[in-house]
């Protein structure tokens, strides 16, 4: 039996389930439940189906968190490999999609730490270079090839300047469209903390994008 032909809940139903959840009517059905059960029973095609169902959201989150497609693709692969490896820890006490986001967000946060150290090293090398030390340095510009318009590049750049905990919250809320409750489950923090992080992230972004938002405001 193919993964697509098993009568599992389709994307439309999954979306509807989420709307119900946001409105307060908790729907105690995980749209991924059937696939997860089949995968745990040894059906690898079910896992592939889960990847295809979640890859858009995972990749979107990672792209906004990391700032370039190469890193996002690397970490997306690692996310799904890690999910496959640790799937036995998923206990159905939350939605599978929450578990997926959690693993992806943690992977992104960890990768950012590594990149942060790498960038610090590059800055150090640049400083030495400027001081006359002839060391090669090729800092990359993650946005140059990835984002089409200048405005989008500026927004993405401002996102990358945020502390990673604030960035994760605002990307999940404003770009991925998760509810406060879902984000609290993904990041394993209280809902109040989620709201506060989003508020702080938006304030910081407003400052960073002052030129853009002022223009937009004048144009209203």
């Amino acid at each position, binding site marked *: 039996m193919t993964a697509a032909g098993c009568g599992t809940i389709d994307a439309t139903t999954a979306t509807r389930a989420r709307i119900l959840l946001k409105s307060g009517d908790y729907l105690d059905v995980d749209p991924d439940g059937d696939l997860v059960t089949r995968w745990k029973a040894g059906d690898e095609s079910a896992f592939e189906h889960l990847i295809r169902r979640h890859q858009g959201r995972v990749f979107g989150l990672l792209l906004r968190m990391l700032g370039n497609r190469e890193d996002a693709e690397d970490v*997306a692969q690692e996310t799904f490999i890690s999910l496959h490896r640790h799937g036995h820890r998923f206990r159905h006490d939350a939605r599978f999609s929450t578990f997926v986001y959690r693993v992806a967000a943690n992977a992104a946060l960890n990768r950012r730490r590594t990149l942060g150290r790498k960038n610090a090293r590059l800055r150090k090398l640049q400083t030495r270079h400027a001081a006359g030390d002839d060391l090669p340095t090729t800092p990359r510009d993650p946005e140059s090839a990835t984002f089409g318009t200048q405005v989008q590049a500026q927004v993405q750049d401002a996102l990358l300047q945020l502390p990673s905990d604030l960035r994760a919250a605002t990307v999940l809320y404003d770009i991925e469209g998760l509810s406060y409750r879902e984000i609290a489950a993904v990041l394993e923090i209280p809902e109040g903390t989620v709201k506060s992080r989003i508020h702080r992230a*938006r304030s910081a972004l407003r400052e960073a994008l002052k030129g853009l938002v002022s223009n937009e405001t004048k144009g209203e």
Partner: protein
Amino acid sequence: MTVNCARVRSHLGDHLEGDLELQFRARVDEHLGRCASCASELSELRSTVALLRSLPAAQPPAELANAVMQRIGAGEGRMRRSGAVIRHLFDPRVTAALAAGLAGFAIFTSVETSWVQPPESIAIAPNGVFVADQNAIDLWETSPPTLATARSVQPRLAAIERTAANRFYRPDPRSMVVGFYGRVDPDLQQLDLDEQLDRAKLDPRGFLRQLNEVAEFERRSRVAPLVVRAGRRGDAQVVARRLRDTSHPLANTLAAEFDRKQSNSQQNPSVIPASY
């Protein structure tokens, strides 16, 4: 009763989302009607959110799912059992990472480290490599490395002597080479090697000396080693049991050696059994 600017500004996010209780919202709106500064902030905030939401949806690479399934087919997605401790022993990437880590040991011996580190530091933490049980590894890999996580994980780690690097040649009689567990991030490995090379440019002779020490150590041990401090009985038992659980041909030898070291630690200070 009116509301002041500070209170209004702290609720502008809720205002945008329509989350304000009706009566309070009316008071905020009344304030916004007469305070150009707050109104401007709300407007800028709205524009900021609009800009964020205008970022185009990201299209994942067409081959993402296939690439993942191929890697899983090659064995990468299997759950790690404690046998990984032994399997990683012979992984050249681990050896390389350890070499980088060892160079780091010599350089950073005075640097204090805590367990509140990103997961990748498991591989080359300045206080050494260590054996972690499966639960600890799971927890570390799937949860953020917060202080709470670290506190939860720490008791389940058989920690190594902090100054392990100095003890490779003057070994603690309670220690022995057992194995190595490390999650090796190729980027990180490259990064740390790069950092070492940066340092090498500043102190070429010192770096060369460290490299020679690492090479000598690898030659003598033949494998990427792990020095487990066996001073705590509980840790030793966990390590021995997990070694026996593995199917690796060397597991029983290692476990027996471990037990022997436990019972004769004061009498036999040699650290690296000749058999491996």
